[in-house]
Structures are given as C-alpha cells and as structure tokens.
C-alpha cells in the first residue's frame, strides 16, 4: 500500500477540461464499466476509470504525465457503454490537449494555437511570414498582377532557396520547442509509471514495435463503437506520410539536380505518389468531418482543438491539389493565390505541430513506446 498523501485539487484544471470537451466528467460514479469494455486497457493498472477520478479531483500532475490517456484512440466504446453519460473517451481527449499545452514550449504558442479567441493571430502569423518570404524574393506584386506567362511558382513566386531556408528554419525552430516538451513528457512518464527493469525490451526495440503497430493501425481495428475512425485515420496518416516523403524527396532533388523540376508529367512516380497521397488525405479528412458531424456520440464531441487540426490538414490537402491543377491548367489568375494559401496552411500544420492536435504524433508515439517498455498491454 502506498502511504496516504494529501492532494490539492487543481480547480482551474477541472474547469479547463470541462471547457475543452470534457464537460461530462463529473457524471462518473466509478463503476469501471469503461475499463472493462476498453479493448486497449491492460489488466494491470487499467484505464480510463482511474483517469476519470483524477479528472474529477483535479489531479493535473498525474494526468498530464499519464501515458494511458495516449493509448486511447477515442473509439468511444467506453462512452457508448457508460451508464452515466460521463463520456470517458471525450474526457481523455481533453486531457491530451491539456498535456500538450502543459509540456510544449513556448507557452504562448500553445495559447495562440489552442484558444479559439486567438484564431486571427494564429492565421496572421503564417500570412505575414509568407508575405515576408515573398518580400525577400521581390515577388509580392505577383499576387496583385499575376504574370501572363506559363504558371511557374519557383520563378514568379516563392523561390526554392527562400522556401528551403526560411520555411525550414521556422519549422525547425518550432519543432525544437516541441521536442523540449516531448522530452519533459517522456521524463515525467517515467516518474509516474516507472519502467520495470526485468521485462523492458529497451528503447530501440520498443520504438520499432511502436512503429510497426502504427503502420498497421492495429489498435484502431479493436474499436467497435467508432469503427470508421480506422478508415479516416488511415487515410489521413498515409496521405500525410506520402505527401511528406514526396515533398522531402523533391526538396532534395532540387538541391541536387535543379533541372529536373518542375515535374511536368503526371505519370512520373513522384507525381503519382503525391496525388495518391492527396486523395488519401482528403478522403480521410472528409470521412472524419462527416463522422464528427453526423455521429458525435461515436466519433467524439469535437472541440476547437479537434476542428483546428482537422480543418488545417484537410485545407492543406485541398489547396495543394488545386495548386497543382492551377499549374497544369495554366490558370494564372488564381494559381498564385492558391499556392499562397497552401503555404500558409502548411505553416499552420507543420510549424504549429507541437502545439496543436498534430502534436499527438509525438506524444502518442512515445507514450506507446513507454507502454511497450512497461508491458502488460493487450496486443
């Protein structure tokens, strides 16, 4: 038995959870139906029943460093079976947002990204930054007087050099803020749920296991209530992964062999892969939005945190596709504007990653790695 200890409830934390999707948390009466119906919950130290009482008691320190909240894929099997309508799945989603807010630095960035009142600020930052990049290239006038010549983004709009230097450096700086937060999170997880010495497969093996689990989307398949989430997440995940890889290859290609760009054949393998990625991404995003609007009981009560990320990633996909269409159809009147918006939303997606819901990519992955090291989870 652990010694009794007096804890102070963090009342602001409770209110914050209730405002960001966990408004039902006080309804829980600790019957633990949720822990039993959850297919991802381990026998030893199961969740989410204990997280619900921690949330009710304002135990912020325990919750933000609890890796269990990240093992939840919000299929809402728990919420649909909950006898009280306490919706544990939604409460855990709210806890995850708070965890990101707690760890990622600088703090004001999480506020800008997560507070709906600051949405204009969140959009103004990338708009100004992209305008600044255009200023550096001397192509601000392209937006007002698009050149009549064949659409060519590199020559008349953002040069690859500016993009590579300015965009990449912004992304790296923000990512560093996220990595600092992630490191703090990993250290706190180890304090809250120490890794037992005997069965730990080690960090590397755990990372490999987590990676393959992610590729297979195995955990999503265990859900019954919100089973569409498997398809929406699959589309978004593989769509984004393909596009990210293709873009990275292209960036390198331009550095090595600038003459090969732009790629003008749609049957080029890079183009094929990129377009497949766009279709997966947009398809997955549309399924996710449809589910959230039509069956919120199964897909989860959506907060600003969810909508911001979902709409940003979907807009990236759509504007990207339109930018490509504009180039191939030589629609110079709107091509450059479309590209402008595309870069703005890519900024929102990538540079805001550590502060938005996209941060789950870092936090969830390493929480799963931690779970592999702690052991005892259903495979």
């Amino acid at each position: 038995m652990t010694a009794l200890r007096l804890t102070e409830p963090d009342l602001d934390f409770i209110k914050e959870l209730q405002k960001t999707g966990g408004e039902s948390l006080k309804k829980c009466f600790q019957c633990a139906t949720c822990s039993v119906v959850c297919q991802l919950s381990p026998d030893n130290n199961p969740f989410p029943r204990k997280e619900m009482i921690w949330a009710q008691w304002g135990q912020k320190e325990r919750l933000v460093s609890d890796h269990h909240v990240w093992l939840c894929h919000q299929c809402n099997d728990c919420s649909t079976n909950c006898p009280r309508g306490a919706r544990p799945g939604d409460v855990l989603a709210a806890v995850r947002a708070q965890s990101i807010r707690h760890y990622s630095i600088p703090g004001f960035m999480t506020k800008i990204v997560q507070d709906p009142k600051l949405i204009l600020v969140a959009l103004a930052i990338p708009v100004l930054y992209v305008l600044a990049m255009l200023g550096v290239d001397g192509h601000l006038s392209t937006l007002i007087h698009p050149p009549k010549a064949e659409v060519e983004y590199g020559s008349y709009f953002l040069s690859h050099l500016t993009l590579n230097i300015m965009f990449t450096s912004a992304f790296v700086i923000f990512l560093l803020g996220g990595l600092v937060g992630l490191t703090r999170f990993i250290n706190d997880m180890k304090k809250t749920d120490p890794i037992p010495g005997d069965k730990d497969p080690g960090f590397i093996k755990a990372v490999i296991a987590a990676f393959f689990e992610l590729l297979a989307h195995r955990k999503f398949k265990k859900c019954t209530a919100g089973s569409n989430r498997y398809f929406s997440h699959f589309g978004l995940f593989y769509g984004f992964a393909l596009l990210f890889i293709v873009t990275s290859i292209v960036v390198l290609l331009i550095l090595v062999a600038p003459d090969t760009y732009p790629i003008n054949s749609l049957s080029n393998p890079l183009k094929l892969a990129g377009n497949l990625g766009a279709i997966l991404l947009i398809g997955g995003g549309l399924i996710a939005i449809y589910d959230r609007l039509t069956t919120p009981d199964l897909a989860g009560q959506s907060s600003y945190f969810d909508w911001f990320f979902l709409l940003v990633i979907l807009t990236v996909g759509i504007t990207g596709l339109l930018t490509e269409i504009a180039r191939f159809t030589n629609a110079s009147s709107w091509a450059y504007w479309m590209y402008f918006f595309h870069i703005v939303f890519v900024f929102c997606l990538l540079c805001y990653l550590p502060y938005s819901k996209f941060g789950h990519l870092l936090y969830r992955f390493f929480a799963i790695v931690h779970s592999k090291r702690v052991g005892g989870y259903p495979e």
Partner: protein
Amino acid sequence: MSSENVGEAKNEGILVVGGGISGMTAAVEAAEVGKKVYLVEKEPYLGGRVVRMNQYFPKLCPPVCGFEINSRRIKQNPRIETFVSTQVKKITGRPGAFVVTLETKASMVNDNCTACGKCIDQCPVERKDDFNYGMAKTKAIFLPHAMAYPFKYVIDPSVCKGKDCAKCVEACEYDAIDLDAVPVEFELNVTSVVFATGWKPYDATRMENLGFGKFKNVVTNVMMERIAAVDGPTGGKIQRPSDGKEPKSIAFVQCAGSRDENHLAYCSGVCCMASLKQSTYVKEKLPDCNMEMFYIDLRVAPRVEEFSVKVQENEKLKLTKGKVAEITEDPSTGNLTVTAEDTLAGEKIHREVEMVVLATGMEPNPVVKELVPDLEFDEHGFVHPETTDKGIVGAGCAKAPLDVYSSVQDATAAALKAIILR
C-alpha cells in the same frame, strides 16, 4: 367471489387494482375499517411477485405464512370482493363517483374445482411455467402454485387444444371444466381507486454484454429465488440450469441494468440486499460454494444494516467493488468468466465461475395510460404521488421500487387515503 350483485353498490366502494402484497394489504386495511373493496388481479392467483420469493429479509422467513394470513383476512371479510384473471378496461367519472369497466378472462374452470389433479394426468399439452420464470413446465391445465388463492386449476387458452381434445372434461368428477366459457365484461361504481400494479424484473436479455438468454448458467435474481424455493423447479436444491450441477462458485452481478442511462436509470434499492440474502441460501445449502459479489456501491437500507453486516461476515462471500461489464462462456463446460475492474486494487479481474446471478432491477408494470387519463406517471413510468387529489392513489411498487416491508407500509397509507377520498 361471485359478481352477481356487482353494480348495485352505490358509489361507496374502493377499487384496488393489483393483488400483490400491496394490493392485498390496501384491500384488507380498507375493508377491516368498514369499506367495501373490490380487489382486481390480472393473474389467476393473488400474491403477485412476493409469493414467488423463497425468503425475505431480514427475518429470512418464507412468504407463505404472511400470505396465508392475508388470504384468510380476505376470504373471511364479506366486504372484499376478489376478481382474479381480471383487468381494468376503462375508468370514467370523477373522484367520488368513478365508473370502472373490467373484463374477466374466460373462466374455463369454475369454483367446483377441488384441485384434485385428475385433469393434469389426462392433459396432453405442456407449457412453460411462467410462475417459475420458464424454468419448469406445467400442463395446459394447471394449479398456478402450491399455495394459490383461489385454490383452483386454470387453463392457459393460448396452448389448450379446446373441445377437440376435452380429455380434462372427461376426467373431472366435479363438472368444473367448461371449455365454452367466454370472457365477462362488467362495471363497478367506486369512490376511489388504488393502483397497486406492482413491478416486473428488468428484461436481462437487453444487456447484451452479460449473456443472459445466451448462456444457460446466467440467471437473474428472481430466478434464483425460485431455484432456492422448495416448491420451485429444483425442489429447493441450488443447481445450475445447464446440467443440474450444484455450482462450486457463484458470482452475483449487481446493478445488472440498474443505475444505467441505457437501461434503468435509477437504483431499485433492494437488489444489494437481495443478493446478500441469496448468499445465505447458498451458504446453507452449499457450504463449500465460493461466492463473489461485484458491486458499484453496496446500498443497504439502514433498517437492515445489522443483517447486512452479519451476512458479509461469511468467509465464503467475497465482495468486490467494480461493475461486471462482460461475461463470456466456455461452451465445453458451461462455466462463465466475469470481467470487472476491482476499483480498490486498480486491477482487472477475469473470474471463472460455475453460475452467475444477475441482480436485475425493478421496473413498474406498464399501465395503459389511455385507460386512466387522470393518472400521472414519472419519467420512469411509476405512478406519480401527486395524483391523490384526482381520486386515484398509487401503492407499493407502482409508485417506487420498494421492499416488502415498505410496500406494506405504503399500501396501508394508500388505504387510508382511499378511504378519505370521496
């Protein structure tokens, strides 16, 4: 028992709807202070749910002795007229002057019946015995139960082959069977109405995760009463349904559908006590049987606290805080695995047991609202207590889930209200 001078009463009687413990109590209390009472019951016998119990807490006495006393009080009181197999069809009028239309089902066995039992030897048809929750069978002509009042046989018209068969008519020496009987409709004039329409167990098949109806050895608490009763399907031996084996382990699953928005949103307030009580049956009859009771909160009325504490001292009974949310069956053995989180230890338990008793809650018997326009119900279908000024009084479990003791108290209060209403 006869209905010949019915209708001549001049607006002075009380109608009691429901012949369970609450209705019987309200009837005798009102009649014994001089009121005319009409007691109406839809089943062919009085006693309702209570006569189907093995014992009730905290005294652990069988219900038959109390039932016998009440039956005698009804039988000997000329001011009570009892109508079994009868249902209310319509209530019109106003407080002080209601006109009630009733219908008695075709009474194919008349009062000549001596319950000699010669008819059942001849009857070729079997039916599921609903008195025993389907765990036994009777013939199409049967005695509802060993202590039935009125003590006579009845015929289930849904399975009886009728005049084509008529073997029972030949067998009967008392000319008690008339297969041509038809339903009888009649009217009563009363000043007030007591609704003692009682309760029914929540339908356990609706909790798909608990396997009732799919797994034979998952039974409900009301079935467990019949299993333990000497006049029940096993003669009082605690045997599991699949193979008649005496279980070496039993899990009691509390709040099976209760305190659950998806099922019964409220707590019936008696099931924890009922399961603790049933653990005493098991302890007495199967001393080596290990029992585990899974609960969210043990909710025991203060009146029976002492009894509850005593029962929990049983070392064969383990109490685990955590709701069972999954039951699976091993088809080769018929054994069951119940899964719950032990919330005090913070660990999931997968316990294999030989039998499971689901503590299902109490649901009000449905009352057709159109028949009684003035009656008001709460969100769960219980009679609203504020209907008294409309000349209609709820009593017992029609008003709220109650134990026997509280139902008797409530029915006595209801009788008083019905008397002063005019």
